[in-house]
């Protein structure tokens, strides 16, 4: 791609430009969530903060893991570990589409030369009990982002509605940088003395994790961990809202949600190991969804979730 003088040179430059852009538009730039998740949506900054009435604007990179997508680093586009860039603004501003297009310009996509399209793509996460309407955004026929207006999360109607943007960073960057194989993509500035490609950093781990995900992960242990996470999530939520030690009202929605995320990721691993049959799959998804709903129920009971003593009274 031979766009303009402002074309970025590396993967990290694209990330930095997105960070700067969205910071400039008033988003809190958060850091990735420190747990294994399948997508940026799982970050509590999206799942939980899209609930309740309090305004929110956040953007962050989220490393995401999809064990079944591992290809030992050989497939030019598929990775079991990759990065998503996530923006969540509540309530969704009327100019969200323009803001989004601005972010594409910020990373060097010249609107005068490219064909940007909003193509229907409704989003649904059966594990989160969430859905929304929106599009996949195409740049010259290539899907570069998901654009969603959340309607329901964890079984709760979203009032107000959040606008969510998700960029698949590797794919988008490969396109902007004109790279055909993800492992060949410059991670830092290729002119720098120690230039590192995406492959320098991730080829090794893709191989290791692909082997572990598909063949080595201990399924008995994983199955047990799934059960434990599920049980513990319930225990946490069953605890008294009033903390006996401090005497404060402390609903532990986030710690419970951590267990939900954990269960979800373990399910993905078990799926990659091929030990979950088609019928069981639905049941497992249902179990994670039940947890997500309970966490959502708990979150809206917290102050961050919009609860106040006045409204409760």
């Amino acid at each position: 791609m031979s766009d303009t003088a402002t074309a970025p040179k590396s993967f990290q430059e694209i990330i930095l430009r997105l960070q700067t852009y969205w910071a400039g538009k008033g988003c809190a730039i958060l850091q990735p969530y420190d747990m294994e998740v399948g997508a940026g949506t799982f970050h509590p900054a999206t799942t939980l903060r899209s609930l309740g009435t309090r305004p929110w604007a956040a953007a962050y990179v989220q490393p995401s893991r999809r064990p079944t997508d591992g290809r030992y680093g050989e497939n030019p586009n598929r990775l079991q570990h990759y990065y998503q860039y996530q923006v969540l603004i509540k309530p969704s501003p009327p100019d969200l589409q323009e803001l989004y297009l601005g972010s594409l310009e910020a990373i060097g996509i010249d609107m005068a030369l490219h064909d940007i399209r909003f193509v229907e793509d409704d989003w649904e996460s059966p594990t989160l009990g969430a859905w929304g309407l929106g599009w996949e955004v195409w740049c010259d026929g290539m899907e570069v982002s998901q654009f969603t207006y959340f309607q329901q999360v964890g079984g709760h109607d979203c009032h107000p509605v959040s606008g969510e943007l998700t960029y698949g960073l590797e794919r988008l960057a490969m396109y902007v940088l004109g790279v055909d194989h993800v492992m060949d993509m410059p991670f830092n500035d290729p002119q720098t003395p120690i230039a590192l490609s995406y492959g320098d950093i991730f080829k090794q781990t893709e191989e290791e994790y692909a082997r572990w995900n598909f063949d080595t992960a201990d399924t008995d242990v994983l199955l047990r961990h799934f059960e434990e996470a599920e049980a513990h999530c319930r225990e946490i939520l069953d605890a008294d809202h009033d903390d006996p030690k401090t005497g404060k009202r402390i609903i532990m929605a986030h710690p419970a949600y951590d267990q939900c995320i954990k269960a979800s990721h373990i399910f993905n691993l078990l799926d990659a190991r091929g030990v979950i049959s088609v019928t069981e799959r639905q049941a497992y998804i249902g179990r994670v969804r039940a947890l997500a709903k309970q966490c959502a129920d708990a979150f809206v009971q917290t102050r961050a979730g919009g609860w106040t003593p006045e409204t409760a009274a």
Partner: protein
Amino acid sequence: MPDLLIELFSEEIPARMQVRAAEDFKKLMTDGLVEAGLTYASAAAFSTPRRLTLTVEGVLAESPTTEEERKGPRADAPEKAIEGFLRGAGLTRDALEERETPKGPVLFAKIAKPGRPAAEIIAEVLEKTIRNFPWPKSMRWGEGSLRWVRPLHSILCILSDEAGAQVVPLTVDQISASDKTQGHRFMAPGAFAVTGFDDYAAKLKRAYVMLDPTERAETIWHDATNQAFANGFEVVDDKGLLAEVAGLVEWPVVLLGRIGDDFLDLPPEVLQTSMKEHQKFFSVRNPKTGRIERFVTVANRETADNGATILAGNEKVLSARLADAKFFWENDLRVAKAGMGDWLKALENVTFHNKLGTQAELIDRMATLAREIAPMVGADPDEAEEAARLAKADLSSEMVYEFPELQGLMGRYYLQAAGKSDAIAAAAEEHYAPLGPSDDVPTAPVSVAVALAEKIDKLTGFWAIDEKPTGSKDPFALRRAALGVIRLVLEDELTIALIPVFGAGIERNKVQSPLVKLIEEEEFTSTGIVTALQKLSRDQTSNRQAEIDELADQLKASESKTQQLLDELNQLNEKLVGDRYALIGFLHDRLKVYLRDQGIRHDIIDACISMPGNDDLALLVKRARALSDTLGTEDGENLIQGFKRANNILTQAQEADGVEYSYGADIKYAETEEERALFKALDAAEAQITPAMKQEDFTTAMTAMAGLRGPIDAFFEAVQVNTENKTVRRNRLNLLNRISEICLSVADLTKIDG
């Protein structure tokens, strides 16, 4: 009279919803206007990805004044009643009119309903339309509560006449109507005002928006075929894709692109599907090679480099897509050439239906059925069985996982690659057919055997578990499966007695298994209790009577449970035996629909269904066609009357006399020439009909039957059946019985209408 222009401007409307939405918009608005008294001359609606537009010409400037008459109390009613009436009508006493009625003098009020200005009505109807719009899916956004397909940004609503344009005042959820719209998102951003539809359409075009979806589709098709032709190619027709693509752009720009050489050897269906499903590309064929070698993509804008960047991007995306497809194809070929064992094994874990087992079990049943059916359709049983075992293997392939619509077709490619016979490979593709009523029916014997097995297994399985179609609900497409069986049998002229095949199929589904298992478990429980009881009763050391009593009760309960389960099992078994007949009945119902479309009356089919061998559909239809033809002749039509007359007289006599006149008509008691002629004619007809029926030569049999019309008519003309002479009468009744029996041996003519 003023013209009305409305535009609802929103974020991108899904392409598949646009055309319908424009129609709904027009209907809801114009119906609403007319209902409020605002008639109009003409109306048209348009859609683009970002707007729904309605133009209504020649709208009344205001709704006409109407007068309503309301009947009040009698003129001599108490003052209070009259006052109440006046209050309700909003009138004064002098506005009332007294009129004589049969009930005496009554007061009447004339209430004038003044006309309302068009703008007021339009605003009301538009707000109602927006708030109740029938989107297939709608959403909320921001802090609002309004629902629309995607966020609604602006409303243009103007009434214009010679004097100029006026905005119709209206506010829906903080969006106020104006006379402004916007052009193309990228090529002409910014708002502009319009004064009427012509001005609107012209300004939009200058702002790179082609309003009319038909015009966009035509432009796309025209430019695509032209560009392809200029390069010696042809575009593969795809109306559905054309309509969809026309809904993705406001300013279509057609670009012709290349497919990388590496991918040209992929099956053309894979290229086509991948390009269409993922990229919305049209396939472009090289007529010389017959291969798909180019594609057409439609961009939503012009660029300074004439689309070079856009096209390069699209080509690159396509390469990545096709690299995936090629990867699947090559991996799949490896598994296929290794015998597909991995794929078949994977199907053991795929549930077909929770009461009917896995895909692998389904395949087992299909294989047995295909082997059973093979001799009836001229297929080799071994080959048919193998074909059935392999026909669904491609469901596990990566390509079909990615593109489910390629199931069957990929099976064919993979089986060919695996070195299987052409017949087996073809069966993988063809065994799903026929899907629709106009779909081709397979004719190759192995394909036919597997296609029948697939459908019959489905029908028997869902019948056995009582998942039958009801009303408009047919979630497992059983009507389609039944029609498939019918068309396979008829169009391939197959002779198959379906009842035994259904019977075996129903048993093969083993729906009794869960019950049998429960019974075994309960029996095991009983045995355990008996053992415990025996042990207790041997124990003489202490008084264990209470425990013994308890166990005895448990045993009783367990035994009665077992009995109850056994009863259930018996009932189920009986039902399953009945199912094969119920299923044939279901096929007969579908057959009636199918033949009705071919001009055969349902009563004619009923007349044939009553005959033996009705599970042989080809025979049944052959009979029905012959009967339909015969009844179409003058002789045939009149024969029915003769038959009915004979039958009525006979039935009445039998009822009155309490005897059956079923044997022994003898020509020696015949008194008239006509009677004797009928005897001879019946003998002659029978001599023809009996052997013809044996050979299933229904046409000969029925022609012979129709030939009886003359003698029967002559007989009734000349002869009085119920005469005084009892011997003669009995003989004539027995003769009528012969008419009836001969006719009924051909078809159940009592079922014929008229």
